[in-house]
Each structure stands twice: as C-alpha cells, then as structure tokens.
C-alpha cells in the first residue's frame, strides 16, 4: 500500500506542520496529568507520502489532500514532573505521561499530475491498543517575548 505521510505543510514563515484548530479540540488538566486532543473532519492535511517529499518544495512524489475523519490523543498517568528555565527565552512546568491514539484517515485515489503515476486510494484505522509511547508530556510554558 506504499508509504503515507500526513502533515499540513510548512508555512511561508517556516512554521512547521502547524495548523490552527478549534479551541474546544483541546482539554488539559496538568495537575491531573490528563489531556485530550480531539479533531474531526480535517481536510487541511496533505499526504506527502514521505517526509522528504513533504519538505522538498518541488514535491516530486506528488502531494494530495487527505481527509482525517478523526484523531484523538489522550494523555494520562503521571510518570515524572519536570520544571526548567534557561533564564531568558524558555521556561516550563511539564508532566511526562503515557498516551493513546485513535486515528481514521483517508487518501483518495490519485492520478497524474497530482502524483507521477496513478495510485490506489488508502484508508487507515488505528488500533489504539497498539499504541507505544516513546515520549509524552503536557504542561505550561512561556517562550520568546512572553518568557
């Protein structure tokens, strides 16, 4: 089924893979070590197929709009708390946790010129039970001029 790599692209400001979302999509309780990110019907993501193709301004493998039907990430279970300041540009108070992901996403079938060759459509539904947390954290921070 080939490689698939989803992101919203890079802004002219060089802001990487970051899009605005409804404020109600996020619920966070740092003291409890719990948070959720809950998104539905997102059509501002691209399937760039690979990260290299996403970062390449020419996108030689093509670039097509995907449809994220739903994404839910849950943070829970405090493992460790960390506070840090570098004294001038960044400070934060974070708790490190476990996490779990649910995802349903689709890439439509494509044909030239959107991809170099015709590609079948792709659908994916995650099994949240398979989630392996390499790292997860939630917290409050200040950076830059709001340090």
């Amino acid at each position, binding site marked *: 089924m080939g490689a698939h790599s989803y992101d919203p*692209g890079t802004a002219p400001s060089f802001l990487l893979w970051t899009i605005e979302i409804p404020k109600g999509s996020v619920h966070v309780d740092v003291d409890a070590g719990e948070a959720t990110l809950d998104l539905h019907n997102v059509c501002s993501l691209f399937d760039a197929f690979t990260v290299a193709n996403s970062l390449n301004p020419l996108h030689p493998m093509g670039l097509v709009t995907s449809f994220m039907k739903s994404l839910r990430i849950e943070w829970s279970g405090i493992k460790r708390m960390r506070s840090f300041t570098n004294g001038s540009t960044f400070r934060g108070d974070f708790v490190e946790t476990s996490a779990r992901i649910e995802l349903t996403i689709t890439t439509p079938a494509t044909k030239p010129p959107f991809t170099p060759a015709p590609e079948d459509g792709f*659908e994916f539904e995650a099994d949240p039970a398979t989630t392996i947390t390499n790292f997860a954290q939630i917290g409050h921070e200040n950076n830059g001029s709001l340090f």
Partner: protein
Amino acid sequence: MRGISRRALLQRTMGAGAVLGSGLWAPGVAGADDDHTKQCGVPLPIPFNRPGPFGPVHQYFPGPIDGSAWPTDTTGTHPEGRDPSTITNFDGFVGQVDLNFSGTARDTRTGVEDLFYKFHTDSRFIIGDFIASDQKRHKGAFAFL
C-alpha cells in the same frame, strides 16, 4: 502521522541544504480571538532550528524540556532547553507525543487489507496566548501534525 519515521528521516537527511518553504501551509489566521486584527498576523516559529534537507527546520524532536538526553531525540542534549512548542512568543499549554502504533489499512480499489500497517507520529497541541507577526497578542489553539 507517517508510515515512515519522521524523526529518523529528518535525522538521516540533516546536512543537506537548500530552501525550505513549500508555501503549501493552509493559511491560518493568528488566532481565534475576537479582535478585528485577527486576520493580520500569523504565528511565528521558534528561533531554534537545525539543518533539514531543504532548509532550516524550526522544531525540537520530542524529549524532556530540560534538554537532557532522550532516545526520541538523537540530535543530543540541549542546554538551552527543549521547547515542545513550534510557536514562539507563546504563553500557554502544550501537549506532545511521540508514538508508534498500527492498525488496519485498506487499498480502496482492490480491497486488500493490511491488519498491521505501522505508523509513527510526533503530534502536539499548542493552546494559549502568542504574539503574532502583527506584533499583537492573540489567543489560539494549534496542532502540530
């Protein structure tokens, strides 16, 4: 979310150089605030960057905020701290994950299924106040996906 490790690929391709900037970002306003300036500014990236295959990449890999060594960031330690936000001039909450997971993938033409299709993701939410490119303070919520 990607079927290939974003982190591994970025780290493999470090050192190449050209110009990043696809211009493909979905244009976002500065924030979902109510003031009349909301369409006049956009959030700006953190100053930190490392070389990417086509230009600077303004993002730390996931890991502890104190910049200590962590397996998800093979670029090493960061004495200045490892800011999980991609947005600068920011005051608010961030959630970050580095996850591996799998699920059922299906070819929509053939109907062939792969019950163990693997993904890796570095995803984040960023919610709070920020000074945008219009030099004004805004409120907003963002996702790094």
